[in-house]
């Protein structure tokens, strides 16, 4: 009996070691890097005037119904956050009197929230049926309702709480921004960027947007500069007096990077953008899982050991 037990312990030790090693894995999967031609937005909070033209355009071109945060008085579309009827929203930070724009104390600032189209998206990693996928060319994270089983693991996984679910419906779907893929196909740009009158949201290739963002961080506050409107490299531009920036491009590296980049005059946490490590959660989760299940070797060896031991032991019992 003791010998058999020792035999098994060897096998069990292999499985146990795999699990324990997984906590601090040495064999990490390569972190995902930016796709060369990926597209996205640069949103500059200091440029945004909070007009919400983007919110309205998003609803119109994605055929979304109004969302009421005042159900007793449902007169106009007034969502408080992104929801299953709202892919894009402008939110307000306000402190004290709120007098000055882009000031942390007694000031206010705007922030646009929508799907970040992450470089290494948690939702794509989490979805058991590949209903959420990242396009290999544009990097857009899109959703397929024919695949989705409605488990809502994407909602749990997303560090930005972006995927929204139709809890009120008998046949619900997940809803989120897909960067107006339907418009891009027709050669148009996403509605929120096209209808942004100030250039707070500009569409472009992420690598160019990153260059533009870093250029703006070099601008001297008070100087007059030319800002692109709607899209990078397009005809429309606007001149404006630069206001001070926080010296960081949010989304460059946060959570492994995103295709929506942010500039702001106040700290990003105040605008509700979470502080994330440079390593994506998807990378951490997949590394641990793949360390345990690499090539299914550990489970197969474990099963082999089990078959041998159980076969031997059931014979003994007869």
């Amino acid at each position, binding site marked *: 009996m003791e010998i058999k037990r020792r035999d098994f312990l060897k096998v069990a030790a292999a499985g146990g070691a795999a699990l324990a090693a997984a906590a601090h894995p040495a064999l990490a999967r390569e972190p995902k890097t930016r796709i060369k031609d990926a597209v996205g937005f640069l949103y500059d909070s200091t440029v945004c005037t909070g007009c919400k033209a983007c919110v309205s355009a998003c609803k119109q071109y994605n055929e979304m119904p109004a969302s009421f945060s005042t159900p007793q008085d449902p007169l106009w579309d007034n969502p408080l956050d992104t929801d299953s009827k709202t892919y894009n929203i402008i939110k307000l930070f306000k402190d004290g009197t709120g007098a000055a724009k882009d000031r942390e104390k007694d000031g206010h600032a705007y922030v646009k929230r929508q799907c970040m189209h992450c470089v290494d998206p948690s939702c794509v990693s989490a979805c058991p049926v590949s209903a959420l996928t990242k396009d290999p060319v544009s990097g857009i994270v899109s959703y397929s309702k024919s695949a989705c*089983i409605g488990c809502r693991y994407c909602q749990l996984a997303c560090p930005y709480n972006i995927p929204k679910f139709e809890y009120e419906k*008998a046949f619900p779907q997940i809803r989120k921004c897909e960067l107006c893929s339907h418009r891009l196909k027709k050669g148009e740009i996403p509605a929120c960027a096209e209808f942004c009158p100030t250039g707070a949201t500009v569409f472009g290739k992420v690598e160019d947007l990153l260059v533009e963002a870093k250029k703006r961080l070099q601008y001297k506050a008070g100087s007059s500069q030319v800002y692109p409107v709607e899209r990078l490299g397009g005809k429309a531009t606007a001149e404006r007096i630069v206001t001070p920036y926080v010296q960081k491009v949010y989304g460059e590296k946060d959570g492994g990077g995103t295709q929506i980049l942010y500039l702001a005059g106040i700290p990003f946490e105040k605008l509700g953008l979470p502080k994330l490590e440079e390593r994506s959660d998807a990378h951490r989760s997949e590394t641990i899982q793949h360390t345990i299940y690499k090539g299914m070797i550990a489970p197969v060896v474990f099963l082999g050991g089990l078959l041998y031991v159980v076969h031997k032991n059931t014979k003994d019992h007869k």
Partner: protein
Amino acid sequence: MSEESKPLGGEVLTKPFKVLAGIFGFAVLLIIYRYFRGIGAVSNLNDGYPWGIWIAYDVVAGTAIACGGYSMALMVYVFNRGKYHALVRPALLASMFGYTLAGASIMVDIGRYWNAYNLFLPGYFNVNSIMFEVAVCVTAYIVVLWIEFSPAFLEGINKYKSGLPKFVQNWNVEGLRTTLNKWLFVFIAIGVLLPTMHQSSLGSLMLIGGWKVHPLWQTGFLPLLFLISAITMGYAIVIFESLFASVGFKRASETPLLGKIAGVMAWLTAIYLAIRFADLVIRGALGLAFQLNLQSFMFWVENALYVAALVFVAPPASRMQSRSLFLGGFFLLLAGTVYRFNAFLVGFNPGNNWSYFPSFAETMITLGIISFEIMAYLYIVKKFPVLPKPEHA
């Protein structure tokens, strides 16, 4: 095997059974309502808290509580402790129902249930998804459990042959039993592999929750902690059920055998706690346990329950008393359940003022599923050879 177990017999429609049936019936009505009016109509689930008690209890805690079959198989077939054989069958029965109903309650929870078969279509597989691994593994294990338990059904059919429909009488039950017994070891082996995989992965599910999971629970050791904890819960439920059955059905108890199982449970719990706290110290997260908030309070409740279980089952002398064993098993089940609730709900905070507390209807659906489980267990132990014969005690 058949020599060890025998049907209890006796009245099925007892008073407790009728109460359970009432709760279950009410839950069925609520479930029907949910399919017409959506998940939001019966639950408090929301975009910030997409998972509530249907996942945290019915699936995550529920399958851990249903680990009796797994834990006993480890002991009897892997570590070759044949003397515990008589306890395998009741444990398997509870596992079979626990897992089957966890699977059934997933169909209440998932929003697009008509697409559920996509989980098994290779074109949709996402091998990076922990949820994929859990879903496939749990489904496979449910099938394995029914096969592992089927000898009891076949024995039952043999016994009541005259009362059964003609086509069942014509089955070659003996032939089927022989073939099954010959190959049963394969299913027993798979039946140990699968829970090892998915009980650890149930913990891994929260890894991708990242910052939304409180550092007292967010750790790379989630898979290992969930696995050890599930095995201890498996032993705890075997002890708890066995003693409950001996009191409830007025049978002699198997205290000496249960005492030895409790010893294994105590050791594993000690190992679990050592890993749990070492991890917190190494990550520098233990300080968070001393803040005045719900999370730190629930952290201490969770671990106090583990310690309470140890108080009853760690001293060898108290393991010889059914009362200590019962309380030890009970506290351990509670501890493991609270750990799971903490990792999935109490320690989960999506920010942005979202909150979650289960609604009445949501709770009733969970209670209805538990009621059905107990009803089915009571029916089967009375009609089929599951519980050990008293003289074996």
